[in-house]
């Protein structure tokens, strides 16, 4: 959901991205069914054993030995991903109360709820690496861990809900589908489940825009305006261009990453062009055109200086998003304390009963 750091879609079985997710799931089961070649011969053999598992496309599991840097890289990525899901609820949540039909209201509420669920799956996956959710939440609230820069842009109209579903969730899926093959088991499994759910998210967004684009002139203008504002920030979601990207080589070796930022960005653009045509909307890039030689679209790069500014905290909504999250956390403190106190009282009663 943020600048990608991750692995690769092999050729998919079924059609489209969902097919790739299913192929990844099948590969996971297939790899699991293969006999583990051996157990580590001794403590000196741990690194070799780790390398062998990764090499065989099998999964590293929580209690396996792993290089400390592998653990740290995963914690950083999974946490950032989890934070993105939680903060990402806000821009869309902004329109639940004003959704223009009861059906759309129900869908949007279910979608934002899913994102909370995704955040929790991911926090749980991160916790298997030996860090607690409380610590991760503190790191977010202190600003020491980041979330995807895309959520620092405002949702100004209903069409923005459609644009987020189509473009932002679409970009997220392109980024995330490769993660279904990540070498770390809990993360790969969480991503399989999340990608399946995100496919509904993307389709509902596309459907919203399609309805608007074929509606009244005012609705169509709203849809075009949303595409104009969300296009370049969505391209920026794939992270800085390859020359400036950190964390790459090692992540490739660990099978956390197999495609570069630029490769995935290209893939996303190539997918969107035809989808925009069917919507009847114009991608705001006069230089967008098919390059026969490359068999891909040429396109204008997003403003990476803007991306860096937003990541550093100077996007339109950084302060608002963080203040909202901190407020919710602070307002809920007395409730969490009450639940803990109640549980402690019941535990004491139980002990006394046992003693008696």
């Amino acid at each position, binding site marked *: 959901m943020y600048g990608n750091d991750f692995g690769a879609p092999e050729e998919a079985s079924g059609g489209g991205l969902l097919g790739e997710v299913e192929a990844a799931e099948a590969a996971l089961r297939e790899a699991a069914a293969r006999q583990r070649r051996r157990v580590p011969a001794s403590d000196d053999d741990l690194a070799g054993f780790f390398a062998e598992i990764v090499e065989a496309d099998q999964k590293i599991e929580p209690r396996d030995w792993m290089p400390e840097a592998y653990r740290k890289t995963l914690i950083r990525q999974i946490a950032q991903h989890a934070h993105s899901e939680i903060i990402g609820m806000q821009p869309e949540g902004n329109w639940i109360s004003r959704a223009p039909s009861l059906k759309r209201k129900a869908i949007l509420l279910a979608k934002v709820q899913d994102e909370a669920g995704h955040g*929790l799956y991911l926090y*749980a996956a991160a916790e298997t690496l030996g860090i607690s959710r409380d610590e991760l939440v503190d790191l977010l609230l202190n600003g020491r861990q980041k979330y995807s820069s895309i959520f620092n842009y405002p949702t100004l109209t209903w069409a923005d809900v459609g644009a987020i579903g189509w473009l932002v969730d679409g970009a997220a899926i392109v980024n995330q589908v490769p993660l279904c093959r990540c070498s770390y088991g809990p993360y790969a499994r969480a991503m399989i489940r999340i990608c399946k759910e995100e496919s*509904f998210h993307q389709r509902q967004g596309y459907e919203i825009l399609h309805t608007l684009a074929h509606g009244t002139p005012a609705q169509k203008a709203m849809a075009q305006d949303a595409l104009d504002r969300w296009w370049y920030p969505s391209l920026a979601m794939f992270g800085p261009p390859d020359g400036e990207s950190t964390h790459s080589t090692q992540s490739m070796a660990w099978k956390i990453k197999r495609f570069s930022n630029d490769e995935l960005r290209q893939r996303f653009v190539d997918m969107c062009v035809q989808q925009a045509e069917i919507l009847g909307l114009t991608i705001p890039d006069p230089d967008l055109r098919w390059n026969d030689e490359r068999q891909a679209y040429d396109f204008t790069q997003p403003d990476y200086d803007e991306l860096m500014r937003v990541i550093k905290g100077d996007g339109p909504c950084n302060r608002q998003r963080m203040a909202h999250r901190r407020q919710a956390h602070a307002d809920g403190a007395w409730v969490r304390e009450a639940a803990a106190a109640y549980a402690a009282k019941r535990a004491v009663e139980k002990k006394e009963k046992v003693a008696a």
Partner: protein
Amino acid sequence: MTDPSPLWEVFVRARRGLSHTHVGSLHAPDAELALRNARDLYTRRQEGVSIWVVPASAITASSPDEKDAFFDPAADKVYRHPTFYEVPDGVAHL
């Protein structure tokens, strides 16, 4: 001082005739809340499922593979499924 909201492992019987399967974990101050949260997070209102929650601290693991989190797909409300949405003819990669 004990953790005010400890970790629980969640097991779900998806259908009659199947055994409980580990689906993931969550935090809750006590078992009753853990069960409630598990229902919302891991079954999203499927009827007729049975859920177990177990304090993660109560699990003794024999081998490296035993404390992971496996997420099975959940059956859900129709609008949670991508096939609920009309995709215009000819749209690819959606």
